[in-house]
């Protein structure tokens, strides 16, 4: 039983090779608020296979970050089971590395000390961890900036520092929550290439959260489309495009078809979100 909720049609193409490494099983998350419980995620199930790049896409507020926090072990109050290689997640798991939606570099550490941070926590000797850190700084293309402070870098560069820092911990599963959301379109495309290249180089199992369709189709093996509130799994789309990929693939016809298909799904949800907002606004002004 892999992937998707009951409403999602099975894709025709055969499943990817590789064993399941991350399993989310009937996840429910509700937040207690002064106005009563808010259901953020309702019955989401998915399986990520080893070496696979899976994206979760959905309109703003549909519960993507909530799924991210649950899988990352930072949000433990939920129903359903999340497991890594069969091991249930009850807190941050050593196999999972997280890259956050927000700006998250340590402003008091230089680039290299930022990247070496997870290695420092494990007690790795200084010379060794700086060498490792240098390797990952090169991987994200920041060589020459090792001694700079984050305050001296651009937003895109800082996001690359965060990515290198998480990669330095060599997680089995890389978990990213809209890592490029705050960047301009060009930087986003170039960084996307970088991520693709790294992912293909490391055979890195990756779970990417995004609301950018192009980004999702460009990078993913499969895409989970989520519904607007409450966040459910609407459909799983297999992206059957050849690898290795770069941003050039964006121009191809097959790419356009996938984008159109997911856009149709999302438009439905986004407009549901809008009408939802409107009715609640109208209700608000009427009372």
């Amino acid at each position: 039983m892999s992937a998707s909720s009951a409403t999602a049609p099975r894709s025709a193409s055969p499943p990817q090779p590789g064993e399941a490494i991350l399993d989310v099983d009937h996840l429910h998350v509700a937040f207690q608020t002064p106005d009563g419980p808010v259901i953020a995620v309702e019955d989401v199930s998915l399986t990520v296979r080893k070496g696979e790049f899976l994206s979760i896409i959905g309109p703003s507020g549909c519960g993507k970050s909530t799924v991210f926090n649950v899988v990352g072990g930072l949000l433990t109050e939920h129903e359903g089971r999340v497991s890594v290689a069969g091991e249930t997640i009850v807190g941050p798991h050593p196999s999972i590395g997280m890259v956050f939606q927000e700006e998250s570099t340590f402003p008091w550490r230089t680039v290299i000390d930022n990247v070496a941070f997870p290695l420092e926590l494990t007690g790795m000797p200084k010379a060794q961890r700086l060498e490792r850190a240098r390797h990952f700084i090169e991987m994200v293309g920041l060589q020459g900036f090792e001694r700079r402070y984050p305050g001296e870098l651009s937003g895109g560069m800082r996001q690359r520092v965060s990515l290198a820092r998480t990669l330095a911990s060599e997680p089995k599963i890389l978990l990213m929550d809209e890592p490029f959301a705050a960047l301009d379109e060009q930087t986003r495309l170039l960084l996307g290439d970088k991520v693709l290249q790294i992912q293909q180089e490391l055979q890195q199992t990756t779970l990417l959260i995004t609301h950018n369709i192009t980004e999702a189709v460009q990078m993913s093996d499969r895409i989970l489309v989520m519904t607007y509130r409450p966040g459910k799994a609407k459909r799983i789309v297999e992206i059957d495009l050849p690898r290795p990929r770069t941003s050039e693939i964006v121009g191809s016809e097959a790419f356009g078809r996938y984008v159109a298909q997911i856009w149709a799904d999302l438009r439905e949800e986004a407009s549901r979100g809008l009408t939802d907002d409107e009715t609640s606004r109208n209700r608000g002004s009427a009372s």
Partner: protein
Amino acid sequence: MAATGSLTASAPVRGRPNRVTLLRIGIIVAVLAGWELLSRSGWLYRDVVPSLFAIGKAIVALLSSGEYYFHLGVTAGEILAALAIGGVLGLIVGLLLGGNRFLAAAFESYLYYLGPTPKIIFFPILIMWFGVGPGSKIAMGVLSAFFPIALSVAAGMREIDRVLIRVGKSFRATTWQMATKIYVPAMRHPIINGVRLGLGVGLIGTLLAETKLSNKGIGYLIIQAYTLFDMPRMYAMLIVLFVLAIGANALVGRLGGLSNIKRR
């Protein structure tokens, strides 16, 4: 009016003596001249306003006596010990209050009430607990330095960027690693600020205690000079102390300036 104008106009010029510096020197010279005039005029007892020469001689005598340095060492040691103890206690309490809403709700208002209370009123108790020697002076300094440090750490902790804490947790940092590698460096500005305030009030607390009841330290020497009516010596000590306090403040200020370089 003219003075203000020249002040703002010449402020950016650095290095060579400008009008501000000249004005400052002028004021000092005027004060010294006035003092000397007052001393010679005979309006006040000569001993209350000793001549500049007598004070100068006393300063030289002071700085060349080993005894003075012994007492200076005692006071400096007391202040450093007070700052260290008060700093660590303030840091711990500040971290607890800043990190735990329940504790903050229960206890923080006490800190706000006790913070501005003159700590000298506790001095009799401290003497009974820690004796007449340096112990009670250190305790006074600790009591003074603790509050500003604890309060500024607690406030600083609430202002930490939450995502940095989540980063630490996602890398499975231990509680100790979280405290030393994330909380404390993230709060370096409020901590340094707290230490500056703590040093100021700790210095006051310690010296005040020394002047009240003691057998060692600068405060003790000052009061001794006063009771022996050795005014030149007393003024000499006040002047040296004043210069030292300015130096200490500048030093901590430099510390704060350094931390600003690494600011985002």
